[in-house]
Structure formats: structure tokens, C-alpha cells
């Protein structure tokens, strides 16, 4: 049955995050952005608070307990709740959402493909973070292979009881602070996807180091790092899923499954930033006058606001559809990419339009600094987790199954 109402739990979560965002996060947002870091005390408090809120449908998946065994007859609500929470968090500050302690993007591949021992080993470090915050990370992108996952060149060679990894990973969220990183490598580039392997590489492993910490246009408070693997030896049991998991194209599929789960959440975050900018522009318009007339009286401005709003609404519904399919266990690769393509593009345009509506005021880093920040933050949402063009490749291939590689 069609239904667009949030559950009581989702509504409460949304309101709680909104309230926190309004009163606590946004006032500090610019400071963190300029300091290029988020206050650890805040992250610890936030983590403690969210731990108390955790439930089966909480977006902050309960990694302390490891993966849950779900009743196949019960339709999960997890992805839908996560989308609602992600949008609201991004409305407050998108960099926080990416900086939250925990396994982050590293969680889905371990949850989907890890052995029970690996899940216990890698998730257990997040069990108690009262003294020290910890992060996990996801290392797929390379200088020569961004969204073209099949083109990765980081090599892995079996050497006795170990694997030896060589290569560089770039644009890795929380890569410098992570306790471990899921690293994708290949045994032989000529094998394409069949040659892919995924490893969990722990910080401190000989040959594994953090390279450059990137200086970015937006999302400045979140760390983005380069990772270097130079004759990095990892034990055989760090191979995600064990040898048997790679009899087929599982290595590649692990990466893809991660995207099916995370692309709609990234899209939800884009909606959150876009909504923040739209609301800002709306309030600006209500308070300002041109030639003695209130701005909303000008049809061009009113219509632009209306277009911004409806495009955001359409993007949000595409996100909700993708996560709803995931919750129902329906394959959603096409819809996940569609939501990401749409939301990334729409929210970027909304932020551009919001600045335009506010005129020169909108670009100021003092008086209207949040708007200026959202404008810088949003662009990457049409880039990371696969650019808008890559999403269109995914969608078109899913629409036309016989399509060869472009």
C-alpha cells in the first residue's frame, strides 16, 4: 500500500536530530569548517547520545552487537529510517554525518561479505568508545580509477600466509584516522572484476601509511586522505570473506553491494543540504524588499523557489523509493543510482539558485556564511560514491540489459 507518512519512531528521530542540529550543531558548524576538524568532545557526546537511542531501526546501526539476524518475514525499516536520519543530519551539517565514529562505509562490505570471525574482529573495536573514538574506512578509489571500480590497479600477491599489497588509494573518507580500512586490490588487472580482492588493512600494518590529507572545496571538517600501500603485508585471514568468496566475481560485487546501500543515503544527505539552502533562501526572500515591494511578489523569484522545492521533493521521493526497495529485499541498483544521480544534481542546482536569489549577500562568508558553506559542500554529492555520469551509466545498463560497455 502506498504510504508517505513517517513512523512515530522516524518522526521522533527526525525531530531530535533537527532540534540538535538547530541548537547545537549549526552554531558550531562554521567553526569546524574553518578549523577543518570537528571537536572530539562533541563527537563523543553525540556518539554516546546516539548509542542510547539505538534500536533495530536506528540509522546508527548497532555495530557493537555485530550484524543482526533478521526475521525474513519481517520487513526491515532500517534503510528508510537511515535515509530520514541522514537527510536531517546533513541539514544540520553534512561533514558531521561523514565524521561520525564507527565503521562508516567500511561496514557494508564486512557485513555483506565478511566471515563471522571477521565481523567480530573488526566490529568489536567499536564496542566501547568511551575512552577513544574509532573509525573504519573504505578504500576503493585510486588516482587512476575513480568510479571505474573495475579499473583498480592496487595489486595483491599471495606470499605464503600473507598477501602483499602495493598501490595508492585516494579520497578516502576518514582514511587518516581509521583503525582499519577495507582495501580493494587486484590479483591481475587483466582478469577485470574476477581479479578483485577485498582486504581489511589495520592501521599500523607495516607498509601501510597515510599520505596527503586533502584540502577540499567543501565538507572541510571531514577528513579525506590518501593511503599508501608499499609492500604492505596483511595476514591471509584479512581477505574479506576468505578465499572461497572469490570463486566468482564476488570481489567486485562486494563493492557494488556497498554502493546499492550507500548511494541512496548519500542522496538523502544531498537532499538535506539542498533543503537547508532552500529554507535559507525562502527566509531571505520573506525578509527582503526590492523597490519597496516584498521579494515574494516578484514572480520570477517565487517561481524559482517553487521549482527548487518541487525538485527537492522529487529527489527525496526517489531516495525513499530506493531505500524502501532495499528494506523489502528487492534489488535496487538501478533506483539507488537514479536517486543519487537526481539528488546530487538537484541539490547542487538548489544551492546555486539559493545563492542567486540572495544576490551578492549569498556569497559572503560572514553574514550568510552557512549558505556559502552549503554551496561549497554540495558539489561533491554529484561526485563521490560515483559521479552523476557514472550513475547514468549504471541506470542505462540496468534499463537496457544488452548494452555493451561504452
Amino acid at each position: 500500500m502506498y504510504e508517505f507518512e513517517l513512523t512515530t519512531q522516524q518522526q521522533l528521530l527526525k525531530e531530535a536530530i533537527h532540534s540538535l542540529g538547530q541548537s547545537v550543531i549549526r552554531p558550531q558548524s562554521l567553526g569546524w569548517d574553518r578549523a577543518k576538524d570537528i571537536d572530539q568532545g562533541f563527537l563523543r557526546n553525540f556518539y554516546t547520545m546516539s548509542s542510547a537511542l539505538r534500536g533495530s531501526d536506528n540509522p546508527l546501526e548497532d555495530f557493537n552487537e555485530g550484524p543482526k539476524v533478521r526475521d525474513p518475514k519481517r520487513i526491515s525499516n532500517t534503510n528508510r529510517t537511515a535515509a530520514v536520519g541522514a537527510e536531517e543530519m546533513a541539514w544540520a551539517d553534512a561533514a558531521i554525518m561523514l565524521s561520525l565514529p564507527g565503521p562508516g562505509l567500511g561496514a557494508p562490505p564486512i557485513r555483506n561479505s565478511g566471515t563471522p570471525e571477521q565481523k567480530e574482529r573488526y566490529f568489536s573495536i567499536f564496542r566501547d568508545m568511551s575512552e577513544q573514538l574509532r573509525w573504519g574506512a573504505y578504500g576503493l578509489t585510486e588516482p587512476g580509477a575513480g568510479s571505474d571500480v573495475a579499473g583498480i590497479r592496487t595489486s595483491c600477491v599471495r606470499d605464503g600466509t600473507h598477501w602483499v599489497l602495493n598501490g595508492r588509494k585516494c579520497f578516502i573518507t576518514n582514511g587518516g584516522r581509521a583503525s582499519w580500512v577495507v582495501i580493494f586490490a587486484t590479483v591481475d588487472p587483466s582478469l577485470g572484476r574476477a581479479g578483485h580482492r577485498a582486504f581489511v588493512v589495520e592501521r599500523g600494518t607495516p607498509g601501510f601509511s597515510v599520505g596527503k590529507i586533502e584540502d577540499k572545496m567543501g565538507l572541510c571538517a571531514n577528513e579525506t586522505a590518501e593511503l599508501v600501500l608499499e609492500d604492505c603485508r596483511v595476514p591471509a585471514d584479512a581477505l574479506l570473506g576468505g578465499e572461497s568468496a572469490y570463486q566468482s566475481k564476488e570481489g567486485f560485487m562486494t563493492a557494488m553491494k556497498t554502493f546499492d546501500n550507500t548511494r541512496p543515503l548519500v542522496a538523502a544527505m544531498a537532499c538535506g543540504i539542498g533543503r537547508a539552502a532552500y529554507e535559507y533562501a525562502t527566509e531571505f526572500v520573506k525578509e527582503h524588499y526590492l523597490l519597496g515591494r516584498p521579494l515574494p511578489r516578484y514572480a520570477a523569484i517565487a517561481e524559482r523557489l517553487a521549482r527548487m522545492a518541487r525538485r527537492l521533493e522529487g529527489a527525496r521521493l526517489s531516495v525513499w523509493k530506493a531505500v524502501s526497495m532495499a528494506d523489502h529485499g528487492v534489488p535496487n541498483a538501478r533506483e539507488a543510482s537514479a536517486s543519487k544521480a537526481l539528488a546530487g544534481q538537484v541539490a547542487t542546482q538548489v544551492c546555486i539558485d539559493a545563492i542567486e536569489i540572495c544576490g551578492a549577500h549569498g556569497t559572503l562568508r560572514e553574514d550568510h556564511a552557512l549558505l556559502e558553506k552549503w554551496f561549497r559542500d554540495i558539489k561533491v554529492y554529484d561526485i563521490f560514491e560515483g559521479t552523476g555520469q557514472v550513475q547514468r551509466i549504471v541506470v542505462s545498463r540496468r534499463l537496457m540489459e544488452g548494452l555493451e560497455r561504452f
Partner: protein
Amino acid sequence: MISFQPTEDQTLIIDTVAQLVGARVAPGVRAREAARGVEPELLAAATELALDGAGYGAASGGQGLGLLTALMIEEELAASDASVAFSLPGFMPFTVFLDTLLSEEPRAQRMPELLRGERLGALAWSEPKPCAERPGMVTTAVTAASGYRLTGEKCFVGNVERAEELLVLAQLQPEAGWAGLGAFTVPQQAPGVRLLGRHATVGLDAACFGAVRLDDVAVGPEALLGQGAALTARLAEAFARYSLHVAARQVGLTRGAFELMKGYAEVRKAFGKPIAQFQSIAFTIADRFIELESARELVRRAAWAWDVGKPAAQCLQWSAQAIATAHELGMRAAEDCVQLHGGAGFIRDVVAEKLMRDAKQLALCGYTAAQADQLAAGLGLGLALDPATSLPTPDTQAVFT
């Protein structure tokens, strides 16, 4: 809980409509266009299935399945031919408006015969020119001893030649501008009513739009269905509901255009391979799919809001957003469909050119995208609704009804 799953009933109904479309609607698209009308056999089959009554409440003689179900049916029909629904009584603006404007008792009396197709009506809203002297309609209704006398000319009126009754919007209080309208039912046979002929339109050839002249037409006091500010608010609701029907047709047309261009791109070869293998083509197809899905869910959410009784302002805003989006994206999809067909798209052997013409005309039935954006903007900014911008008046863009 957020869900995009149709009910079993909805799935069954859509399957039934799809069968009807496959057997009767799709094969007759061009013949229907040439005949400039929908074949009686198809109308009879649709009436037998009571498709157009699905969305109306039981008190009105409908099946009580809600607007959402009705719009699913609309989409399914329009994916093959967007003009058909204009001839189905329950999908006509006259019926939608009457259901919205009438109070409980007269609704129960009047609606069943309309839904059974035993009596057809037409909504006479638009006028050839905006009023130069004051805001409001040129057509006037003057109070008389025995009721009212109506004078003026209406155009872009759907089914005007078939209708036995007209719902005429006229200026009852000239000094009140757009808030001074009155809604009147007028028998088409009433003295002074004169049909001015059918418009030749760019698209939707099988739907009939025409003009009508009223010269001092006398109606009784019972003909007045509403007036003033109360009517204005109801008119906005009625236009939003009707325009959602049209938006669902536009979504259906978009789907038809998308499927046609996709199918063509998969088989048409250029430079030794199917044109779908070129990224510019594949991306265009992907974009139209992404937009189609988005428009569809916006339309369905708006319908859902009306069905579950969300506050009127919320329903209006979501409807306006859905309407504007559907028309914007529908036009784009139809144009791309022609474009991807290249020269073949411009030739009438392929239905692509019809889709593009129909899409443009659909976008001018009920609220246009610009008018819907104005309505949504007003609601979004928390402004009091001004009928001059919250209704699709001839002062902004003239529309088909």
C-alpha cells in the same frame, strides 16, 4: 511507514486496464486521431469496467478506491493514448468539479448518473480575452427576478459538443475581482446558449475542445453552486484535483515516450552499432527514466494526501509540485523521443510526433506548470492565496478544461 507498494486491488485493476489498453486502446491510436474522437466501443468497454468511477466515494456512486487508484488508471491509459481519458465521464473536469463543489445531498443525487455516463457535462472556464476593465471574468452573471442571467463567451471547453450541461464560471460581483465569481450549471439547450464550434488543436486530436456563447441565458437560483471566497477556495481544490488527473496522463505519456525511445535506441543502428551504445543517447534515456520515476511518485504522493485527508494547504502544495513537475518532464521526454528518432520522429509513421504534440496540449489542461509553481510558491512562502494567482485565470495563461 513509507511504502511504494500498490495494493493487491490496485495491481489487479492496473492489470485489467493494461489488457484493455493492449486490446482496444493501442491498436486505435492513429484511427482515433483521424476520427477526432474516441470510438464508442472503447468508451462502452471502459464504462463497463467503471474505470473512471474508481476514485469517487460510494456516496457519489463510485467505488471508493481513492484518487491514487484513479490516477494509476489514468497513467496506464495515457501510456498508450493520452486523449482517451478526456472522453470518460469520471475523468472529465465537469465531474471532478461537481464532486468537489456540491454539498453532500446534491452530490449523492447528481453524481451517480454522471459516473454512469448517462449525462455529460463540460466545464466552461476560460475566455477568449482577459477582462480589460477589472480583474475577473468577462462573462457576467446578473441577478434577476427569477435567478440569474449569464452573458459572455467561453472557450477551450472540453467535450462542449457532447455535453448536455455546462458548469459556467461568471462574474457575479464585479467589484470583488477574482474573488467575485459565481459557479452556475447551465443546460446546453437553454435559450441563449450557442455552440461556436470546435477548436483545431495542436494535439489530443481525439479529445474535443470548443467554444460556446451565452447571450442573456436565464437560469434559476438553484443553478448557483457557489460564490465568493468560499467558491474560490473550492475552485482551487477542484482545479488541483483535476490537474492531478491531467498530470497522471502526462506521466503516462512520459512513460510511453520513454518506452518508445528506448526501444528504438536499442535497435536503430548508426556507425555499426545500436545508437543506445552511444553515451549521449544512453544518458538521455537514463535521465528520462529518472525523471519519469520522480514525477510519478510526486503525483501519487499528492493523490495519497487527498485520499488520507491531509490539510488542504498541504494537498494543494504537493499537487502543484506534482503538476508542474509532470508537465515539465513530460514535455522534455516527448521532445527527446522525437529527437532520438531523428528524421523518423518528425514523420507521422511513428507515433513520437503525436506524443510531442499531445504533451504540449496536456501541459495546458488545468493548471499549467507556471501557474502551479505560482500556487506552490505562495503556499511555500505562507502567503494568503490570491485567486488571481492561485487559479489558472485568463489573466495569466488560458487553459483547456
